[in-house]
């Protein structure tokens, strides 16, 4: 479990995150939603430690991020699997080398053992024959799947996904959502997904946190969204005719 405890973040004196307190539960898909510029990516980057928080604390299974020395933070990061918006695959490395990278840098596994793990992870994301391909030879969906394989290669306790469906067609986006959901349930990891894709919210949103103007505005499950009377949440979620009809139908 990850507990976010009254965190705030400032950039050049401007408060981007304001006193956010929430918890992300193990074995569930915890979604952070919000408009572009609402602060959800900043929140995710604070949680994974890419941005230092100015106030508050973040607890990973009761371990305080603020009280950790650099070595402890480094060890903690080995428990993270992260899927970046564009995949962030290393362009000079092949698929196999990309997935192997965290194993090479963080374990003392031999080449054969690493290769076995790489092949397992690639099979898990249904990319058995892509070992020797380079990121430039992959489609958007394949890049995301390789990034997921790389993220799970070290058996992470926490999986962070920043806009996993951006730039993907609905069908491929659905495949990625299902994959994230399966991995979360299978390995019982704490997954945080940062998204503004309403299909993802309805497909995998076990717990949803809505960020509005840097504040935690609303929390609940995907079912709660359909019945919420929170105006800002409704304006965001039911912005299109299709989603408005969905809301109307459920009511």
């Amino acid at each position: 479990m990850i507990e976010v405890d009254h965190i705030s973040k400032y950039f050049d004196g401007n408060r981007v995150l304001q006193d956010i307190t929430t918890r992300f539960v193990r074995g569930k898909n915890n979604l952070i939603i919000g408009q572009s510029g609402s602060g959800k990516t900043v929140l995710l980057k604070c949680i994974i430690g890419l941005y230092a928080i100015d106030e508050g604390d973040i607890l990973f299974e009761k371990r305080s991020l603020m009280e950790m020395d650099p070595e402890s933070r480094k060890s903690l990061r080995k428990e993270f699997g992260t899927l970046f918006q564009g995949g962030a695959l290393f362009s000079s490395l092949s698929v196999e080398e990309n997935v192997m990278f965290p194993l090479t840098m963080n374990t003392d596994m031999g080449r054969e053992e690493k290769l076995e793990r790489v092949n397992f992870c690639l099979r898990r994301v249904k990319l058995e024959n892509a070992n020797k391909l380079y990121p430039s030879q992959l489609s958007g969906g394949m890049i995301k799947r390789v990034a997921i394989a790389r993220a799970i290669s070290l058996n992470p306790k926490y999986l962070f996904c920043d806009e996993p469906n951006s730039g993907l067609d609905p069908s491929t986006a659905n495949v990625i959502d299902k994959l994230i959901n399966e991995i979360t349930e299978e390995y019982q990891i704490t997954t945080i997904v940062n998204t503004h894709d309403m299909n993802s919210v309805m497909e995998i949103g076990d717990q949803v946190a809505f960020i509005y103007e840097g504040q935690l505005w609303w929390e609940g499950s995907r079912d709660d969204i359909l019945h919420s009377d929170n105006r800002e949440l409704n304006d965001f979620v039911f912005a299109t005719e299709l989603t408005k009809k969905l809301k109307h139908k459920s009511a």
Partner: protein
Amino acid sequence: MKIFSQLGGYLLFMRQVFTRPDKFRIFHQQTVKEVESIGLESLWIVSIISIFMGAVATIQMAFNIDTPLIPKYTIGFATRQTIILEFSPTMISLILAGKVGSKIASEIGTMRVTEQIDAMEIMGVNPANYLILPKIAAAVFINPILIIISIVLALFGGWIVGTTTNLVTSTDYILGLRSWYQSFDVFYALIKTVVFAFLITSISGYYGYITRGGAEDVGKASTKAVVQSSIFIILFNLILTQLLLND
């Protein structure tokens, strides 16, 4: 104030770069790759420029020493001195600042804007150390070798042009090359080259590393890297010459 802030940023970056590599085997592999990328891939351009540089230097020496009072072998001697002391270490380093510096800044800058560096950091890897230290080590190792090759080729280029155009005989030119030779001159050239190699790779790496934004910003970082590396090469050329050659 901006200059102090940048200097501070650069020094903090260097502190991140010069830490103990997590895995020496990986560091070694990366360094070997960089020797190929920084050094061997520059060999062609260094060779071409050096041959022509030596040829031009010889013609200019012959043109300026066109008097019976000065022996012809002085052409070979003066060409050697200008090539060893200045042309090869400084001019070739400036060329490498353009070629290698822009490559490093754009490579690291692209990795930054596509979140590859963030991904590395999240995996518990020190990206500054992993990406930049092998480049610095490779350049500090291979650039002196490139400069030695450059000196040899420049003197060869001078010999070809000097003898084929009858500006100087082969015997006189070679006598000039061998006259009043001091090994310290080569040592001085290599010291300069090592310092310039460090400046090119570290400054370019820094500008790539702090890139924010998109493709346009990567281009800007690359330009800044080349300009700043060149300025610091010229500045350190003056400082090192004053320190090493001033009796």
